[in-house]
């Protein structure tokens, strides 16, 4: 049986951080994302549960900080009604920032015509793009009436779990169509930095964590044929061109798949032919489709019950 992996974030100096990467590789963990910034580095990784203490010990020696990141390996769409200054950068960007600190990859999506009450609507293209993610988080405003009666029509056609944030303190059941409602984060036109605002963001991060936990449990009942982290490793080894993709996260993990940020037309054959094990190609255990995000490749892994294999 494959080892159970735990998500962790390491923040520390860039000096000697390769020791950590070597240790991670030796014990069969995965590096999800590495973000160097001047003399600092942030590593998002999946560590085998039994060996977490080894990583913690080494991180302590390197004077770095290691913390659990429950949102690791998820891609979350943070949706704001439009890109106008009414909704961005505060509070949608602060929400995304807090989700990223939890280890998630976020996509900021501003709808073209999501503003207002009667006139709010979303386009087919936007819904398809949102549906490529693991969770959709809609960032709404201040008015109770809008959130309960008008804005939920933006949820139509969204098939993934929906989280809504807004100003008023209302119950999830009152917001039709939402899987989770999180209050106290409404329309704010300054950077969220007061203690109550930061507290609300912490609560938000925690509650999104609960939803991720629930999706993981669902997946565990009928496991994926192959772990997305494993696909990531194979892509890095077999498609060297990924090294020259200069996006912040060229390989973005999702709970049930992976987004490969290479042009679909040029690379989808290579991705489909990716060898995972003797005679098992990626196309056997996953669907490879063009992504709605630019011209990237979207891989969604099939379940064990469907293909009869678990790698």
């Amino acid at each position: 049986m494959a080892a159970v992996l735990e998500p962790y974030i390491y923040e520390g100096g860039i000096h000697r951080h390769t020791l950590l990467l070597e240790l991670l590789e030796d014990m069969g963990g995965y590096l999800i994302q590495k973000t160097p910034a001047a003399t600092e580095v942030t590593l998002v990784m999946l560590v085998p549960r039994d060996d977490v203490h080894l990583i913690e010990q080494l991180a302590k020696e390197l004077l770095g900080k290691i913390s659990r990141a429950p949102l690791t390996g998820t891609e979350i769409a943070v949706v704001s009604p439009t890109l106008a200054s009414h909704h961005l950068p505060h509070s949608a960007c602060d929400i995304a920032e807090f989700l990223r600190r939890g280890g998630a990859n976020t996509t900021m999506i501003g709808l073209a015509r999501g503003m207002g009450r009667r006139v709010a609507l979303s386009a087919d293209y936007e819904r398809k793009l949102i549906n490529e993610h693991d969770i959709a988080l809609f960032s709404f405003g201040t008015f109770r009436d809008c959130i309960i009666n008008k804005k939920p029509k933006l949820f139509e056609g969204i098939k993934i779990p929906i989280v809504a944030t807004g100003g008023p303190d209302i119950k999830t059941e009152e917001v039709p169509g939402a899987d989770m409602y999180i209050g106290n984060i409404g329309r704010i036109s300054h950077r969220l930095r007061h203690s109550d605002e930061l507290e609300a963001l912490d609560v938000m991060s925690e509650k999104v964590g609960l939803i991720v936990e629930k999706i993981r449990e669902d997946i565990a009942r009928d496991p994926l044929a192959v772990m997305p982290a494993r696909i990531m490793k194979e892509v890095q080894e077999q498609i060297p061109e990924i090294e020259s993709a200069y996006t912040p996260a060229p390989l973005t993990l999702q709970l049930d798949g992976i987004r490969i940020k290479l042009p679909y037309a040029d690379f989808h054959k290579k991705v489909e032919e990716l060898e995972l094990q003797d005679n098992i190609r990626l196309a056997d255990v996953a669907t490879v489709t063009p992504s709605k995000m630019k011209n990237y490749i979207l891989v969604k892994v099939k379940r064990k019950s469907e293909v009869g294999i678990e790698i």
Partner: protein
Amino acid sequence: MEPLEIFKVETKIPEEAEAYKSILSDVMSDLALANAIGRIYVIITPEDSLFQMAIILRGSPPLVKTSDFADVNIGALGKNEIQLVLRDEKYLPDLLEKLWAKYGRGKVIQQDRKTINVSVGNIDSDIEIIKEMIIFDPKRTLLSRLVEMAIRGTPEGFRVRHHSLNDNEFIFVASEDAMKPEWVQQGHQMLEKIKGGEAFGSSA
């Protein structure tokens, strides 16, 4: 009139008014308007998609002359030259524009950040002209900032707008649906209310 001596936001649910008050104060401070606004009264009715705002400005701010922010003196001896030494660099671009337009670029020489020399025909008369030259009219940008504030403050979908500025009185009504005359009328009533001032009470 003190700045923001009345600052009232009304909605059916009091917490929502608090939240909107915070948004409006952020917008006002972003646009440096807090000192220009004396009284402001806002009513928001989300059920009708309606946003109404009445503002009384604190009277026209004075026009800015050269002598308000620069020392104007006779330059080097023997040359027909006037020297300006700036105390405040804020108005430098406007000042240079005006001087270039009047004397031509070749005759206006900026020696360093805060010193400008101007070659003129008659020192005595030109020194007075430069001293009294109107460089900046705060009212000109005030209106555009006021409109900007109204648009930023209003919920984004409310794109049917009515606004009027009479002297120091500004009314703004915005909605998602076709504008009703009674909404504008209510705006005028709100203005009358805050004109009364003290009786209305302050929540600033």
